[in-house]
Structure formats: structure tokens, C-alpha cells
């Protein structure tokens, strides 16, 4: 049989890896036919809504639900007293702490859940919430972690007298843990003996992932079958099933968790929230399905803040600028409960990636977790477990050191980068960087933006400014970041004891199309499009003929979900491995059909052909049919495979970002003149989707650096709980990005891919921030905390005496 198509044409028809395949999800989404949690409507469904604390720290002295129960449509009101007999008034957190589901005697942050009203519709539920009478007795409020460690006020009375927490000794009643990495004495010695030491406090403020869709769920207990179905905005549906089983006592096979379409996650939807527990209980109590969807204010005030790290740094170097040591002490504000979402052995996530892209021989890191009267959370907002904080810290410290050395910051980076021949590189804080070529990326970036000319233009501008010819300064923001994603190897990464592998199951149908199911869940990343591309390239069936399913725990194989840029590094690897198992069986079938030995056929894009006789072949389509209609000696019928992939290492994507910003000294306003983003995420599966991820991640980074924050006053009132106060950039302010790439494949990943979704958030925040600092560097600015909103920039100029 002759084939008219060339190899390249056959390959293009598959729309496999490397193709900017259009997204299959979009046909539904563009017509408004997505199915998000709030779109789910079940017969007789009730609505739940929370009574929340107006105080940040108070005793709850009484709760009266009578008036609420009298409101038409209100079915029940749950308080901690109702949950206590079930043992559900508290729940375990992902960080080894526990958290109140409903206020048990006191509240620890503003917005904390106090009672749960169940009603026939959302309006009646809101009426019920208004009518619940709660009496509080105010207690002293602590919103500053440094004060918390000195204060006599005990925030967590339930832990009083406990000197040991989930992560070792507690030094104070408001202290959670100390986590140390690296060589303390060695680093102190290096600092003592160094030519130059730069020291700075770098604060990464509290913010929030704020996906456009808030968190929510629908719980439905079928009393007849005893089966609980829980639909929800879960980034980790399988883990949620296990957690629900463990805390409710319902056997795991009697729980089905479904993540439908999710309207963005960014870390917000990893954790387990009181709303889920209350909805499950409400459904069991009422025998009806119960929906709970938080509103925006509840979202910003209660579910999952991010960052809030005070990072004290010291960096040592020779006179020539070779870095010799790095020291960091972080005070981490965790709020009222430790509900951070990190792998168990990493209470400060991967903060120990804070040596960044640099070859730093000696380093030491200590992190102290602290309770305050703020919302719990500490999730990774488009970040792999505190990498954003680590990258911001080191990229600021490099700039501070450059000032100390009076050196160009681009050059300082260059002389300290880990060299390409040093990979795999063992970092001083314990990681093995898999691969990289930082010098090449850096040169590519500096050339692309015309770095030398930019510096000349900036110098001219400063002269003009001093001469009174302009009131605008130019800032050139530089960043070279190294990410650590794809958590992770089961030997050191687990969440609540669940190893962080991931999975894929592929079934080939007789006619040569397929369905694949994964343990992950897309929240906009386009998994249905890109994972089909991996399979298409691996087994030679067109991506268009492959259906992808995720998020239903009754059908999908177990996996740890989607966050920390882990889907491609872990589930993507599982997908390739499962596909390879199928290909191995297909090879045997092909050999049988072609009547040759297994080793005498070879793979050719979408078929196996006889070595040396390419005109004799069997396509995957033919092989698929044969798998179901031929009795092949020694082979079972059918063609399917499953892979649970335990990654041998993390992957280490990296990038070089450069921002040029104009700053108006008198108004504090800024304009992003250009933003260049070079990403190296290893093998590229779908360049269109990668670009989209970079645009989106940079925009989130822009928001964080330039205005977005969760702020509290001294009473613990959240000052930024609406979209009026919490900065989300519109199309009008958002810069236009120039994307670029390099490819250094991961040596240990089956297809060499590293993950990209979070890189732009990790890289862009220091880049924007460094641009602001750079503009004022000639006037003596060393460090100024984010977010750099107009007022704060204006204040920098004022404090530097530029307004006179």
C-alpha cells in the first residue's frame, strides 16, 4: 500500500506537540455553554450562606437563630454546636494545623464563618444571614507578625501549652514553626569575612489570587444509595475526596467529587473551606442538594490569601561582584490558622529556591511562621509553593548588591549565573537544578531590548531631569528567575500523606479514536487541547480524535490535581508514559499483522513499518481495530494503558524579563513602555497557549507589583474586600507584552517539558518592581515596598526630595 502523504504532512495532520492547535474547549465557552459550579441546578436544591464575624478577634458569647428561622424560606441554621457532635466544628488544614469550620467560642479574623443559613433560594438565605443575632466580646487585635511574637495576647487558645507543632518546636504562643535550611555557621562566617555585604528587608505584601469565578460547591447526599456527590471548584478533586472521607467518616467509594469547568484558580481553589464542609452537612441533614457559592467580598476576605512574607536578607560578595553567600530570615504571617497549601515537609514551600539563578556557594534560610488576626491561607497564587516570594527576594537582593557595588545589575547577574556546564547543579539550599542555559537567555534578552541604548537613553533623561527639562524618569527593570515546579517526587513531596504523583489513563477505541483521563483539572490552561497533543505525537492518532476528561473522581485515575505548574511536568509525563505503553503493545500487534518479528518493525509518525521496507506498514488506526477483532497469540485483546508517574526530580523552567517604565515624578503615575518576556519551559507543546499563559501571568504580576493588595487596618478590618479597592487591571492599563523563548529540555521528563503557567507571575513581579526602583536609583532609593501604586511612587519621589 502506498501513502501519498509525506512524513511531514502526516505529522502535521496529527496536530501534535509543537502545533498551535486551536482550543477544543472554546466551542463551548464562546457560546456560554461552559458548565461551572453555579450553573449546576439539581432538583429541590437549597442554598447556603454564611453569617460572618465583623470583628477580627472576639469571643462569641451568644448566637440566636430564632428570628432567622422565622423568615420564609429559611430551612435551617447551623452553628458550631450542631457540628460538634459530628466532630466537624473544626477541620484539619493542609498544613498540619486545624481550623474552625464555624466559630467555636471565638473568632480570629474578620469574615470568619460563624453560622451557616440554609434556605430555599439565595435571597432567603441572605435574609436569614441578616436575621441571625450574634453577640461578641471584642478582644485585642494583632495584625503585625512581629508584634504577635512579643504580645501576651494568646490568639490560639486551643493550642495553649502546646510547645510542639506540626513542624517542630513553637517558641511562643503565637508562633507556628521555624524552618531552617542550609549552613548557618558557614554563612555567618562568609558574611563576616566578605569584601562587601548588602543588607535589606524585602517585604512581599499580602494579596489574593482572585479568580473571576469565586469558590463554591453543590453537595448532594443520596439517602437511598448512601452516596455523596460533591461538585465544586476544586483544583485537586481526588485529594478533596480523600479529605472529605477522612473527616466525615463516609467511605471513600461512597463519595464522588466532580470539578466541572473552573473559572480560574491561581491557587485559590486548592484548599478545603468551611463552605464545603457545611454544605455536605447541610445536605445530609436536609436530604436535599445544597449549593454554596461565595460572593466576591467573602472570596477576598476569607478564602486563601497569598504571600505576606517579611524577608530580611544579607548578601555577601567580593569587590568584583562574585557572590559568596546569602542569608535570609523570613517572618511569615499566616493569619489565624495555618492553612497554607504546601507539601507536608515544606512548611515554607520551596522558599529555599531563594538562591535563584545564581551560583551561590553558601547560604542559610530560616522561616518563622506566625499567627495573627488575619485570614488564613498562604496559598501559592500562580506559583509553586512560595517560589514567587523567593524569586522576588533574590532579584531585589541582587539589585541592592549592585547599588552597594556601584555596578550594572545586568552585569552583576551575568557574572553570578550558574553556567550551562554546571547542570545538574546542586544548590546550597538543597535543590538539584535539572538544566538551564542562563547566559544564553540573558544575552538574547539584552540584545532583543537594546539594553545598552536603553541605558544611554536613561542617562540622558536623568541629565534632562536635573536640568529641569522633564519631570519623567525611566526605569529599566531586570529579572532573571528560576522556577521550581512539578511537585513532586513522592519521596519528599506529599500533601496530607498523599504522594504527589499524577496519572493518565488512555483507551483506544476500535475505530482509532481515543479517550484519556487524567488526575489533574484544567482551570483555563487548556488541558483538553494540549494533553491530546502529547498523545497524538506519541501514538500517531490525530489530536482531534482524542477526548480528554478530568475532574470526576468516579472515572478519572487518582491524581493530586492542578496547581504549582505541575500538570505538564507530572501528569504530562504520565500521559506520555501511558501512551508509550500503548505504543509498545501496538508494536507487537503490528509485527503480528505484518508477519515479522517485533524488532523488525519501526515507528514512523502514525504507523509501524517494516524496517527497510517502509511500504509495508500498519497505521495506528489499523492496529487499533486489530486489537479488538483479532485473536493474537500471547496478547490480551483491547488497547489501553494507565500510568502513575512519580517524577524523579522537579523541573526548573527559567526566564529573562525586561521592563521599561516611564514614571511621572509629580503624580506617581507610570506607563509601561515595553515588556519583554523570554521563557524557557523546555519542550513546547502548544506555543499559542504558552504565549497566552505568559500574557496572563504577567498581567497578574503587573497587578501585584503596581497596586494589588489585601490590606488591614489596626482593628483587623480588611480594607480591600471589593473590586473597587482590590486592583485588577483592565484592558486599558494592561501593558502589551513581547514574548520570546529558548528551549532547554528537561533531561528527566519523558518529553522534556517543564511547565510554564506560573513562570510569568514569578518573573514579572520583580521585573516591574525593579523598574520602579531603577528609576529612582540615581537619586538614592535602595528599597521601597510593593505595591507600587501611584501614591507610594509619589511618596518615594517626595521622600527623595524630588518635589521641591
Amino acid at each position, binding site marked *: 500500500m502506498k501513502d501519498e502523504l509525506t512524513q511531514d504532512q502526516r505529522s502535521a495532520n496529527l496536530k501534535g506537540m509543537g502545533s498551535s492547535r486551536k482550543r477544543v474547549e472554546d466551542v463551548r465557552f464562546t457560546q456560554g455553554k461552559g458548565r461551572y459550579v453555579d450553573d449546576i441546578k439539581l432538583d429541590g436544591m437549597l442554598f447556603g450562606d454564611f453569617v460572618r464575624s465583623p470583628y477580627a478577634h472576639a469571643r462569641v458569647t451568644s448566637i440566636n437563630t430564632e428570628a432567622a428561622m422565622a423568615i420564609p424560606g429559611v430551612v435551617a441554621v447551623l452553628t458550631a454546636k450542631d457540628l460538634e457532635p459530628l466532630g466537624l466544628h473544626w477541620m484539619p488544614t493542609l498544613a498540619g494545623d486545624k481550623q474552625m469550620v464555624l466559630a467555636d467560642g471565638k473568632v480570629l479574623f474578620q469574615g470568619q464563618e460563624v453560622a451557616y443559613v440554609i434556605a430555599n433560594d439565595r435571597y432567603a438565605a441572605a435574609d436569614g444571614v441578616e436575621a441571625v443575632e450574634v453577640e461578641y466580646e471584642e478582644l485585642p487585635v494583632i495584625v503585625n507578625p512581629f508584634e504577635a511574637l512579643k504580645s501576651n495576647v494568646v490568639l490560639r487558645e486551643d493550642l495553649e501549652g502546646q510547645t510542639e507543632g506540626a513542624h517542630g518546636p513553637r517558641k511562643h504562643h503565637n508562633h507556628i514553626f521555624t524552618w531552617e535550611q542550609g549552613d548557618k555557621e558557614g554563612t555567618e562566617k562568609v558574611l563576616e569575612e566578605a569584601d562587601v555585604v548588602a543588607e535589606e528587608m524585602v517585604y512581599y505584601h499580602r494579596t489574593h489570587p482572585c479568580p473571576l469565578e469565586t469558590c463554591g460547591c453543590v453537595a448532594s447526599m443520596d439517602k437511598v444509595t448512601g452516596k455523596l456527590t460533591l461538585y465544586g471548584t476544586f483544583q485537586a478533586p481526588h485529594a478533596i475526596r480523600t479529605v472529605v472521607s477522612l473527616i466525615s467518616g463516609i467511605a471513600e467509594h461512597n463519595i464522588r467529587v466532580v470539578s466541572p469547568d473552573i473559572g*480560574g484558580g491561581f491557587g485559590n481553589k486548592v484548599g478545603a473551606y468551611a463552605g464545603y464542609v457545611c454544605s455536605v452537612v447541610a445536605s445530609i441533614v436536609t436530604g436535599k442538594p445544597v449549593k454554596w457559592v461565595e460572593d466576591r467580598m467573602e472570596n477576598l476576605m476569607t478564602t486563601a490569601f497569598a504571600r505576606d512574607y517579611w524577608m530580611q536578607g544579607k548578601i555577601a560578595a567580593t569587590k568584583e561582584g562574585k557572590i559568596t553567600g546569602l542569608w535570609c530570615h523570613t517572618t511569615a504571617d499566616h493569619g489565624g490558622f495555618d492553612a497554607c497549601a504546601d507539601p507536608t515537609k515544606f512548611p515554607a514551600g520551596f522558599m529555599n529556591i531563594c538562591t535563584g539563578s545564581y551560583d551561590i556557594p553558601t547560604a542559610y534560610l530560616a522561616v518563622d511562621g506566625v499567627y495573627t488576626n488575619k485570614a488564613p491561607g498562604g496559598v501559592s497564587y500562580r506559583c509553586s509553593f512560595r517560589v514567587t516570594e523567593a524569586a522576588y527576594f533574590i532579584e531585589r537582593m541582587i539589585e541592592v548588591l549592585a547599588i552597594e557595588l556601584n555596578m550594572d545589575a545586568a552585569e552583576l547577574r551575568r557574572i553570578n549565573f550558574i553556567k550551562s556546564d554546571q547542570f545538574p547543579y546542586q544548590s546550597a539550599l538543597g535543590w538539584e537544578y535539572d538544566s538551564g542555559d542562563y547566559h544564553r537567555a540573558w544575552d538574547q534578552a539584552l540584545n532583543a531590548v537594546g539594553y545598552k541604548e536603553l541605558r544611554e537613553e536613561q542617562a540622558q533623561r536623568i541629565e534632562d531631569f536635573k536640568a529641569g527639562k522633564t519631570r519623567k524618569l525611566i526605569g529599566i527593570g531586570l529579572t532573571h528567575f528560576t522556577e521550581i515546579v512539578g511537585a513532586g517526587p513522592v519521596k519528599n513531596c506529599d500533601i496530607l500523606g498523599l504522594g504527589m504523583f499524577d496519572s493518565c489513563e488512555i483507551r483506544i477505541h476500535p475505530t482509532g479514536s481515543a479517550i484519556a483521563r487524567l488526575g489533574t483539572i484544567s482551570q*483555563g490552561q487548556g488541558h483538553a487541547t494540549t494533553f491530546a497533543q502529547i498523545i497524538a505525537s506519541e501514538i500517531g492518532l490525530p489530536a482531534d480524535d482524542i477526548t480528554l476528561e478530568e475532574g470526576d473522581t468516579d472515572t478519572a485515575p487518582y491524581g493530586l490535581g492542578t496547581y504549582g505548574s505541575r500538570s505538564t511536568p507530572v501528569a504530562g509525563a504520565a500521559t506520555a508514559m501511558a501512551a508509550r505503553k500503548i505504543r509498545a503493545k501496538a508494536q507487537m500487534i503490528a509485527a503480528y499483522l505484518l508477519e515479522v518479528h517485533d524488532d523488525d518493525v519501526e515507528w514512523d509518525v502514525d504507523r509501524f513499518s517494516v524496517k527497510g521496507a517502509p511500504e509495508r506498514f500498519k497505521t495506528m488506526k489499523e492496529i487499533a481495530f486489530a486489537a479488538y477483532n483479532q485473536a493474537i497469540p500471547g496478547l490480551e485483546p483491547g488497547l489501553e494503558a494507565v500510568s502513575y508517574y512519580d517524577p524523579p526530580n522537579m523541573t526548573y523552567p527559567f526566564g529573562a524579563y525586561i521592563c521599561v517604565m516611564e514614571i511621572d515624578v509629580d503624580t506617581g503615575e507610570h506607563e509601561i513602555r515595553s515588556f519583554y518576556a523570554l521563557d524557557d519551559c523546555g519542550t513546547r507543546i502548544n506555543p499559542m497557549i504558552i504565549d*497566552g499563559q505568559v500574557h496572563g501571568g504577567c498581567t497578574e504580576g503587573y497587578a501585584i507589583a503596581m497596586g494589588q493588595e489585601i490590606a488591614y487596618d489596626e482593628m483587623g478590618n480588611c480594607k480591600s474586600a471589593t473590586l473597587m479597592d482590590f486592583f485588577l487591571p483592565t484592558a486599558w492599563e494592561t501593558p502589551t507584552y513581547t514574548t520570546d523563548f529558548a528551549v532547554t529540555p528537561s533531561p528527566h521528563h519523558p518529553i522534556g517539558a517543564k511547565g510554564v503557567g506560573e513562570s510569568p507571575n514569578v518573573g514579572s513581579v520583580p521585573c516591574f518592581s525593579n523598574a520602579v526602583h531603577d528609576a529612582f536609583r540615581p537619586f538614592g532609593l535602595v528599597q521601597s515596598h510593593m505595591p507600587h501604586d501611584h501614591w507610594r511612587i509619589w511618596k518615594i519621589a517626595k521622600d527623595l526630595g524630588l518635589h521641591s
Partner: protein
Amino acid sequence: MSKMHVKLNVNGQEVEGLAEPRTLLIHFLRENLNITGPHIGCETSHCGACTVDLNGKSVKSCTVFVAQANGSDVTTVEGLTNDDGSLGVIQEMFREHHGLQCGFCTPGMITRAHRLLQENPNPTEEEVRFGMAGNLCRCTGYQNIVKAILASADMMNAQKEAAE
């Protein structure tokens, strides 16, 4: 609370129902009519996920009582699909130019873009960015949304020309 009778024309179809005076248009669309294209992202007029066309103007349906919309024409994203079920021009261009990721803002974006292009068939990039500033997206960084809308304008103009 006593209910009132409301009548609307939604995506070309006469619909009616009972609603409390305080019922918001977005809730009436989503819960009474099962039109779940328009989404809820804030309920405070900031995000634009709930954007619909009301008598030829873009409105945020979380900030309109259904009572106010009584007797009006409402178009949602569902109404922008072609009669034969294929994607309308703007829907197609959003797909072509990767103007969406999680898809949550998309119905509001497309409905707003539809009105913007009725009002200004030849917008500049600046005009698109300004005209879309009432609709927030957390995923795309807007770059491809802007591209998709400019491409939609070109395509709609070309179609108009061909028809003339």
C-alpha cells in the same frame, strides 16, 4: 415577598415569569430561565462577567432589577451564535486568536464586544481597550482579546462589503 409578573424578549424569544421586585436580572436569567452564559464575578458592577445587551446597550445585569428590564429586549452570549448553530464572528475570532482561557469572562466579553462593534465598526486598538475596560479578565492579559475584537471588526466589515 410577593412576586410580580415580568415579560422579556430574550435572544429573540418571548419569555415570562414571576420574580420578587428585588430580583436582579442576572439571577432571573440564570435561575428562572436557565440562561447561564452570563456569569457572576462580583455583583458590584466591576467585573462585567454578567454583561448583557439591554435594548441595544451594554449593561451589567447584576445591577439591573428584572423589574426594570420588564418589556425589554435582552441579548446574551447565547444569542450571538449563528442560526445554523455555528459560532458567530466574534465567538469564532475569540477562538481563533486565543482570546479566552478559563472562559468565565468570555460571555460578558463577547457580548460587550458585540455592542462595541455595533457602536464603532472600525475601532482602533486604543478604542477597543477603552471600550472593553468594564470587563475584567484574570487569565488572558487582554492582549489576545483585543486582537480577537480587531479581527472581528475586519471580518464583519468584509462580510458587509461582500453583501453590498
